[in-house]
């Protein structure tokens, strides 16, 4: 793929010229950083992946509420071309919805009618490898541009009005197993983008790009190189293939000016012997200075992981009193089955408690470091472990409702049996080191769980059928929205867990819901199967 990067000066001149000549037309995204920063004040739009930088995925919209949600009905449906998993979390601004379609396409939809305004259809080279589908979770918006990461590991800036390419830069070499599936995060004057490929022996990083020129401004290696702090947590040259990808969008605290991002599994996924040590900064929450990419603190949930439990979930920021002291917290329902509460100023571990069936750890010590259960280490005879490597949680988003003061998480309870296998590093090939089968006779379970955000204690749960892959959203209407593998999209009373409304979409939900206003009416949108479905109350 040819890389085009106009000089910053040229691009600035072009932008200035456009601004001078054109009056902003209806439906043209003009999303300066300040709007995203203050996204909570305009709940009619959904400007960034998790709704706000604090990543609570909570909306103050309340037209749809406990009393009337039972009358919610489909408004329009947009069908994606791809039959691949539709993992998009849409963005909405000023009458336009921006979605991505697998593998690496973007589409702008007219919010009134659901009709496409433009589509960016990317031609992809042969030979792209992705562990878990050629998927995409959404775009970022900044000023008049739309940003999409691609499975051939590029970052592309599109004109928000037309979908035409402004620039297209290579993030990493897809032939080595790198890909981008994450929704980028627009932050200040930068586009933050993470990387996938933890099953292919990549070396992970988090990048920041100049939105005007596409120039890379910083890169934080999640596997430190020689001479860098943490490098000694990798034996030999294992760091070169250390993994620690960054494939789920993080959060940002403007007051502390800290960017929070989860990191994935070390590689090879299931064989620890060849990478002795804690394997920093895999399986961690990292807090970076967004201007420089420098590490301010890290908390490693799972030193030396051998179960492929990527800690790539959405960090949720909330402020609360803990033991009488007001604290700035980041909470993290981890794929490994533990719910964590950390101080987001310092990274100090405060609480860790299982929210799902787990057998890999006998517990956590006072610093939050797990005491691993040796019986669950993959071996040649097959080791049973809960959860399996799809996790108790995964990339799908949790939500926190300040109205109920509960955090909600879709939970998977499913084990796996892990047999050691070869792990021979060859560029672009699977580098995992185990094969997995299901636990014979097991009936995997799925739940939507409401937890006390400060303790992780279960408050209520809704049993669904298969372990879900849907994200959540809560609203000031007293509702939490979720989906199921069998195609149900539903709303529950956020306080009690009573299911108040459901709709069979006909396709599995692998996506996060959003809500917004269109012409003053509240809508809810979810991707299910290959359809993007919107719902509203009858007019």
């Amino acid at each position: 793929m040819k890389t085009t990067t106009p000089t910053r000066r040229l691009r600035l001149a072009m932008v200035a010229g456009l601004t001078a000549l054109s009056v902003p037309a209806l439906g043209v995204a003009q999303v300066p950083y300040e709007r995203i920063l203050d996204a909570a004040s305009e709940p009619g739009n959904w400007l960034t992946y998790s709704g706000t930088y604090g990543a609570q995925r909570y909306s103050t919209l309340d037209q749809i509420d406990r009393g009337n949600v039972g009358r919610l009905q489909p408004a329009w449906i947009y069908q994606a071309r791809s039959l691949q998993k539709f993992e998009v979390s849409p963005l909405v601004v000023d009458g336009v919805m921006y979605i991505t379609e697998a593998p690496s396409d973007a589409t702008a939809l007219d919010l009134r009618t659901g009709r496409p305004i433009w589509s960016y259809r990317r031609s992809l080279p042969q030979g792209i490898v992705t562990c878990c589908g050629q998927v995409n979770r959404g775009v970022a918006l900044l000023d008049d541009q739309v940003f999409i990461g691609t499975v051939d590991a590029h970052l592309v800036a599109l004109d928000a009005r037309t979908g035409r390419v402004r620039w297209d830069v290579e993030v990493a070499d897809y032939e080595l197993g790198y890909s981008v599936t994450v929704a980028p995060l627009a932050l200040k004057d930068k586009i933050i983008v993470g990387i996938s490929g933890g099953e292919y022996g990549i070396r992970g990083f988090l990048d920041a790009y100049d939105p005007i020129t596409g120039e890379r401004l910083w890169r934080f290696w999640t596997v430190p190189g020689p001479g860098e702090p943490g490098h000694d947590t990798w034996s030999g040259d294992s760091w070169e293939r250390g993994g620690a990808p960054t494939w789920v969008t993080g959060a940002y605290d403007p007051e502390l000016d800290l960017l929070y991002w989860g990191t994935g599994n070390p590689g090879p996924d299931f064989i620890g012997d060849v990478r002795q040590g804690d394997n920093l900064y895999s399986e961690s929450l990292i807090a970076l200075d967004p201007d420089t990419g420098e590490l301010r603190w890290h908390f490693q949930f799972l030193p030396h992981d051998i179960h492929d439990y990527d800690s790539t979930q959405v960090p949720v920021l909330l402020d609360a009193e803990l033991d009488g002291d007001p604290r700035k917290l980041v909470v993290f329902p981890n794929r490994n089955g533990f719910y964590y509460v950390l101080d987001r100023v310092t990274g100090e571990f405060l609480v860790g408690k299982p929210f799902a069936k787990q057998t890999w750890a006998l517990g956590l010590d006072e610093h939050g470091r797990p005491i691993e259960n040796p019986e669950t280490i993959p071996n040649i005879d097959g080791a049973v472990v809960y959860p399996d490597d799809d996790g108790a949680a995964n990339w799908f988003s949790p939500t926190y409702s300040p109205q109920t003061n509960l955090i909600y998480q879709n939970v998977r309870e499913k084990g796996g049996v892990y047999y050691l296998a070869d792990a021979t590093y060859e560029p672009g090939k699977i580098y995992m080191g185990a094969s997995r089968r299901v636990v014979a006779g097991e009936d995997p379970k799925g739940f939507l769980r409401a937890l006390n955000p400060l303790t992780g204690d279960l408050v209520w749960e809704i049993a669904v059928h298969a372990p879900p892959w849907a994200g959540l959203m809560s609203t000031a209407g007293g509702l939490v929205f979720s989906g199921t593998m069998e195609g149900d999209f539903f709303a529950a009373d956020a306080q009690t867990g009573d299911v108040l409304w459901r709709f069979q979409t006909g396709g599995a939900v692998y996506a996060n819901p959003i809500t917004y206003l269109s012409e003053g009416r509240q809508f809810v949108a979810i991707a299910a199967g290959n359809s993007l479905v919107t719902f509203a109350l009858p007019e």
Partner: protein
Amino acid sequence: MPFQLTLRRDGPKCLPPERARPKTRWGVVAGCVISIAGWASPLVTAQSADMAQGRRLFESQCGSCHGPLGNGGKGANLAQPRLRRATDDQALSNIIRRGIRGTEMPGSPLTPSQVSSIAAYVKTLGRVAPEDVPGDRVRGEAVYAGLDCARCHTLGGRGGIIGPGLDDIGVRRSAAHLREALLSPEAFVPSGFLQLRVVPRDGGALTGIRVNEDAFSIQLRDLSGRLHSFWKNELDLIEPQWRRSPMTSYEGRLTAEQTDDLVAFLVTLRGDGSQ
């Protein structure tokens, strides 16, 4: 430079009960307790060497999704006689190399010889080679017709729909497995045939086989084949009956000879009309 690490591995020693398999046509014996040491048959041929490579590659490159025995998990169940997408050898090789667009199945930069060894191994999965078994298949067919098998099973387009179809049962199940299924049907209930008991709020308990289920609804077929659909909130009880089967044991109802004959008949049902 690519980093080379090859771990000694012995392969899964204990197969899941549903696929503890007898001899395949390559003379490979696998089952509980028999390790890869048992692999080396007296007839070590180039073919079996390829097969060993295919198996090793399958486990490292494919097994994390398809399972070490190919019988599914995150990926499709490959342990079945006919693969829906890989209808012939070429299609199978193409899929291994290129992946399947629109699905989670990735391509992989494997060499042609690696692809062909994986393909050869995949073709052995879920396929039971013809066996010499005691018993007479012609007499067995008469045993089948004389029993009430057809009340629940379909064969040649005729019969009931509560149980699995039998047209290709001889490819999918070994003689030993079939014998066990006749004598202890509840020892292994095939997936997709979960028996349930439900009690509707307005009375009238019902037992049947689950057809489909989601968070809010369930569909089941009663033993007469009639379909019932419920919203779960219309039900007072949903009781999954794991390891229960509507099929009754033929232990003591068939002579040893009749059992042999029936098994001899069933193993010849290979889905190709060659019975």
